[in-house]
């Protein structure tokens, strides 16, 4: 029930042209909340100091042009130019450092009930859920997380440096080949957020994004359970075309013979809000366009063009993919 509610809420948001919140200043997560407060503290502190300095400048230029005695001038420099900045910077630094332990992940990876492993690839995201119980669940280009639970993210890269960021949920973390970086996030409000790749990674870097969906824990768990088994539509007729045209050598679709691991896992691609890593709406039309000419939509993409296929075949495959809920 809850699952359907949030799914229809998701489609409502998309239908209204809302591509997902993406501002750090509208936090929907515990980490982002702290970062937003830090921003406002720094901004208002900076504004007060700026007003003070400019006020003093105007005061001495317009209203009080009297020369100060050397003694009082030096004491203004000492207190206003040395002591005040040192103490203020010290306090701001202490505040920012004090926030840090709360923004960093658990010391032991096992402390999180859910770990999500995300691997950046040119130009998409491989996603594997590792719940504390049950087998891992593979997905791509979309991350779902339960509201109110701290989730640990394991961030990797398969090719070049990418950077992972969901602005309304938390801070940014690089994905570096050969390294495993960790990040923790706790969503506090349900919603759909957009995560862009934030480190230039090649021609289609600006076309590499994902959606993050924060769901009520109940809904999240039934969603995850549904993801762990093949989609109902997997046996439908479009699947034969998918296999015949070789898509299965790069794509995995649970419940079929498609076992490729080069491209995104498509087992439940129909249930995602977007396709092609956050670039296209998930409609039959857009999927068909992508299959025919991925290179037009994402220059440099590792998926070959299939415009030599009959348009009807492409349509049928797209319809089948949309049905993989």
């Amino acid at each position, binding site marked *: 029930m809850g699952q359907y509610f949030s799914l229809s809420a998701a489609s409502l948001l998309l239908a209204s042209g809302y591509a997902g919140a993406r501002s750090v200043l509208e936090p929907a997560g515990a980490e982002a909340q702290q970062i937003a407060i830090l921003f406002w503290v720094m901004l208002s502190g900076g504004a007060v100091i700026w007003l003070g300095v400019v006020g003093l400048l105007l005061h001495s230029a317009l209203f009080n042009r009297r020369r100060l005695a050397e003694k009082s001038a*030096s004491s203004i420099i000492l207190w206003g130019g040395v002591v005040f900045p040192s103490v203020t910077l*010290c306090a701001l630094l*202490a505040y920012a450092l*004090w926030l*840090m*332990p709360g*923004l*960093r*992940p658990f010391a032991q990876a096992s402390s999180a009930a859910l770990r999500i492993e995300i691997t950046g690839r040119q130009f998409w995201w491989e996603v594997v859920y590792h719940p504390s119980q049950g087998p891992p669940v593979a997905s791509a280009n979309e991350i779902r997380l339960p509201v109110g639970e701290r989730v640990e993210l394991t961030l990797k890269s398969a090719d070049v440096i990418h950077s992972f960021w969901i602005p309304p949920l938390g801070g940014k973390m690089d994905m570096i080949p050969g390294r495993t970086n*960790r990040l923790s996030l706790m969503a506090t409000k349900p919603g759909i957020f957009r995560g862009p790749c934030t480190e230039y990674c090649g021609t289609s870097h600006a076309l590499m994004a994902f959606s993050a969906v924060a769901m009520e824990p109940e809904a999240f768990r039934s969603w995850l359970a549904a993801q762990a088994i093949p989609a109902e539509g997997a046996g439908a007729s479009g699947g034969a075309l998918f296999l015949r045209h070789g898509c299965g050598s790069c794509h995995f679709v649970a419940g079929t013979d498609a076992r490729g691991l080069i491209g995104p896992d498509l087992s439940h691609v129909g249930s995602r809000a977007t396709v092609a890593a956050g670039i296209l709406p998930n409609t039959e039309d857009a999927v068909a366009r992508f299959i025919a000419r991925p290179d037009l939509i994402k220059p440099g993409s590792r998926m070959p063009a299939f415009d030599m296929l009959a348009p009807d075949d492409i349509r049928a495959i797209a319809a089948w993919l949309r049905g993989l809920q």
Partner: protein
Amino acid sequence: MRLIPREIETLWTLFTAPVVWVAHFLVCYIGAAIYCAKPELVGLSFSAVRAGIAAATVIALSLIALSAWLAWRQWGFGTDDPPHDDPTRRDRTLFQGFATLLLSGLSFIAVIFTAMPALFLTECIR
């Protein structure tokens, strides 16, 4: 106490405080990096790393304070006001004392800023 004669004319004293700052920075950062990369090699807990940083900080701050005191003395304890820009030996000495004093102040604050993360971070990763 005349450990170092007041008349000493060398630029080296000018650098004492920044050099202490550099050394403290390297000890803190390299120490923490080695510990966090190979905790089993060092075999101590992270609180030992924090205690080490605290000790290094106390030592660094004392050395900088000493350098500041010597500079203050060289500056004649502030009896003359800057700028000391007459082409005389006396002004040269006072100028150097004053510059050393300012550098000591900067290094003192920098050492505190360098050490401050150890006040809040309780593990390598957080």
